[in-house]
């Protein structure tokens, strides 16, 4: 018996022969199966989000009211525009990636380098945008009041538009100061205090008959949050526990804390994929520059990172739909 020695192994075939199972090289096929398993991970997360969303169907935050910021347009209500821009940035970086793969097929080193660079820049811009989106969500827009049972009460003017706490709350003499290390126990830290105390908010609300409150409950007919008339509002505010500004893993001024949890977790997990994609792209970019693939005779490595990069784009398409559109 003879040992089969590959006569013509160009580095893309499996060890011990030129037979390629499923017609793909080892690396490419494993990248596909990794993508398959990662896709199932993401669908697990999005599925869990869907479960909770169906469970709290009548009180889930409305995305249009949460993500309303756009750079340089302060105070303007601009739902969706920013995230649409982010989607375009990611799709475009996918296009430059596939152009790099295409140039690799033609062994055009110059073009591969150029398009890889554009892809890296696109990925970096997307990451920055994601960070800005998080910053706005964490900082919050209006501020709200949390009840004892965890429900969120927001404030609206006579037309039903949401208003900020700053616009109607008058500060009283404050009895509570922020704890810092030099004011007491040096080893005890305190989370940042909300801008107003609960008492200030409730007293200012009583003094302003023109404003009213809004509960999380969505009217199924109009698909808008229910507004409670000013006179009935004290029933809710008597149950108030704390003032909430912004969103984090423990509370969320826009409504359900679960919404913030899922948002941070899923977009964070996706953002981490983008980050690792950018890093891998940078490594491959330098390999292209020093001519590794030119010498190897093929640019299949660019193709493989390309697959990963497109997958990241593919996941974003679904995240975009389920967090912002549906």
């Amino acid at each position: 018996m003879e040992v089969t020695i590959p006569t013509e192994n160009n580095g893309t075939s499996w060890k011990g022969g030129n037979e390629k199972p499923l017609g793909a090289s080892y690396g490419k096929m494993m990248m596909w199966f990794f993508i398959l398993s990662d896709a199932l991970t993401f669908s697990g997360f999005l599925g869990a989000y869907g479960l909770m969303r169906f469970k709290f169907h009548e009180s889930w935050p409305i995305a249009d009211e949460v993500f309303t910021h756009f750079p340089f347009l302060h105070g303007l209500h601009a739902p969706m525009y920013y995230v649409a821009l982010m989607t375009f940035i990611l799709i475009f970086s996918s296009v430059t990636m596939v152009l790099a793969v295409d140039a690799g097929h033609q062994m055009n080193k110059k073009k591969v380098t150029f398009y890889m660079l554009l892809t890296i820049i696109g990925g970096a811009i997307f990451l920055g945008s994601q960070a800005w989106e998080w910053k706005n969500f964490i900082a919050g827009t209006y501020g709200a009041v949390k009840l004892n049972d965890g429900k969120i009460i927001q404030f609206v003017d006579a037309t039903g538009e949401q208003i900020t706490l700053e616009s109607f709350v008058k500060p009283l003499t404050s009895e509570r100061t922020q704890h810092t290390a030099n004011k007491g126990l040096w080893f005890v830290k305190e989370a940042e205090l909300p801008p107003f105390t609960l008492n200030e908010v409730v007293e200012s609300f009583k003094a302003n008959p023109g404003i009213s409150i809004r509960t999380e409950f969505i009217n199924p007919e109009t698909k808008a949050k229910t507004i409670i008339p000013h006179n009935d509002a004290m029933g809710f505010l008597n149950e108030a526990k704390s003032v909430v500004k912004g969103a984090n893993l423990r509370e969320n001024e826009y409504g359900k804390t679960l919404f913030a949890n899922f948002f941070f977790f899923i977009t964070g997990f996706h953002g981490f994929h983008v980050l690792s994609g950018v890093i891998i792209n940078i490594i491959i970019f330098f390999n292209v520059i020093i001519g590794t693939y030119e010498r190897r005779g093929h640019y299949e490595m660019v193709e493989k990172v390309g697959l990963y990069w497109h997958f990241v784009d593919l996941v974003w398409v679904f995240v975009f739909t389920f967090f912002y559109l549906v």
Partner: protein
Amino acid sequence: MTHAQEHNSHTKLIWKVFAILSVITIVEVALGIIKPDALYLTKILGTSPLNIIFLILTVVKAYYITWFFMHMADEKKSLRRAVVWTSVFLIIFLATLLLIEGSYLNDILGPLTKWNY
């Protein structure tokens, strides 16, 4: 450079796919901002027609990305099916069960939630 002649440039196709993806995204965003009452406030198959449109457009986008950007169209049928059929089946399976359970939880929990104080 015999290698270069084997592979024709697909640049035209790539820009065409980019145009399709852009148009779909613009349509999605426009519908998401306008939210026409006839699509948003009516109900079909347990949700609004607008949501159905969004889901279909998302799947169309996923198809174009997988088939033309990830070159799934050029892979062997066996590899394509191993990846696509597996994921599509498992994802639909998981989503169906989770969403059914979610609406069951809502049926039970919804009437017990207090909304008047």
